[in-house]
């Protein structure tokens, strides 16, 4: 099946947060009470009950009083996903056939390593210590529907489709390279940025922590081969040189 993706176009977003509401509605996530901290960005951060959030960025601008940038922030559905890489519980985090990173709360053991492995600080933990995040509405897309956020978006700031199609269309529209096109094996959420990603509050070069990659490539195989090697060396020594026997000494 073709890999699916979302295309986020901050310049088309009007900050209505219909996507936040539709997401909560479809995923049956309760609202959270917040207080005004001087920004209309609300809630201020992703929570176990908020899979998708519009980040409000105010930039100084020559042509206007202020330049507003509204950026959808959520799980990026990496192809090479740090959370899946570091997760010790089989099946707790997994790839769906559409390329989304899904999760299974029953299999999650609440270790929170995925929080450290994620380059985008996305996974949150609910009150039962189970992982919670955007899953690209994997239950909807498995049935051929589009995610709740893109379905609801009134301006086309969030579009859903085949990843290759999305990239092709964006290139025709003049975007040479989308944010997330190649990072981490290619993200499942692509951004049509007109400026440097930093301005939109995104990492220029997101990557899985180097130590996690080192662990995956070196330390993990070393545990396997180290144990086997120690056993093999012992066996070899026993067969070739043999045990230290005490001539005439008492033995157990």
């Amino acid at each position, binding site marked *: 099946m073709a890999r699916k993706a979302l295309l986020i176009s901050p310049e088309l977003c009007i900050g209505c947060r219909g996507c936040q509401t539709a997401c909560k509605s479809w995923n049956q996530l309760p609202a959270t009470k917040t207080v005004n901290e001087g920004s209309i960005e609300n809630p201020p951060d992703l929570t176990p009950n908020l899979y998708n959030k519009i980040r409000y960025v105010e930039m100084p601008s020559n042509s206007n009083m202020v330049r507003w940038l509204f950026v959808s922030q959520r799980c990026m559905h990496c192809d090479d996903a740090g959370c899946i890489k570091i997760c010790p519980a089989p099946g707790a985090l997994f790839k769906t056939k559409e390329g989304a990173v899904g999760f299974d709360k029953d299999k999650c053991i609440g270790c929170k*390593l995925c929080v*450290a492995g994620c380059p985008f600080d996305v996974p949150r933990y609910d009150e039962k210590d189970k992982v919670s995040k955007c899953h690209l509405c994997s239950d909807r897309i498995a049935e051929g529907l589009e995610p709740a956020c893109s379905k609801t978006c009134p301006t086309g700031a969030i579009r859903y489709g085949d990843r290759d199609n999305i990239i092709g269309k964006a290139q025709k529209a003049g975007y040479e390279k989308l944010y997330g096109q190649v990072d981490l094996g290619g993200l499942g959420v692509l951004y049509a940025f007109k400026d440097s990603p930093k301005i939109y509050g995104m990492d220029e070069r997101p990557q899985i922590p180097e130590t996690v990659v080192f662990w995956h490539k070196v330390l993990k195989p*070393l545990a396997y081969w180290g144990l086997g090697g*120690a056993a093999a060396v012992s066996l070899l020594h026993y067969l070739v040189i043999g045990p*230290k026997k005490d001539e005439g000494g*008492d033995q157990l």
Partner: protein
Amino acid sequence: MTVIRKASAFEILNHWVLAVSFLILAISGFGFLFQLEQLNAVFGNFNAMKNIHNYAGIVFTASLILTIFHYLPVSLKFGADDIAWFLNGGGYLSKKSKVPPQDELNAGQKLYYIVILLSGLAIAASGFAIWLRPQVPDIRKLVVLSHLVHNIAFDLMIIAVPLHIYLATLANPGTLRIMITGTVPLEWARKRHAKWVRKMGY
């Protein structure tokens, strides 16, 4: 047959506590590392395995700290005889090879203890950091670092411990009884721990 006491009852008990808790930790740890669902037959499920891993970690840490009283002072004594022991491969490289007189622990055992103590303390500290997530400015950085330390220490131990088990059983018949009765024949001790036997007044 004259026997000489090499380990106290408490030392024997503590060593078994350390050994059993280590085995539980290592097996479940291997299960997490390679997502071995076969281990569900032993632990039930991964949630139960996590809890057993965490609480076995407390037992392991306490037991490891108690070993300091038994093995650290002698392990820190490192002299010419210890160096010669290593240069002779501990006498393990051929049937004829001989090593100089050794203390209560031989040079290899001393090094082994230092490796286990340091990697054990590192794996314990990093394990508790991952489990308890202390209030620090950047918890993600701390967990990533702890994850690295936890795995380096695990690699050290998963190589060192099997060698220790082999050397204490098959490679040296008569050694295992130190961890059962706590005593060894005097002649056995003279051959392996001459300096210690002399110090004990035999």
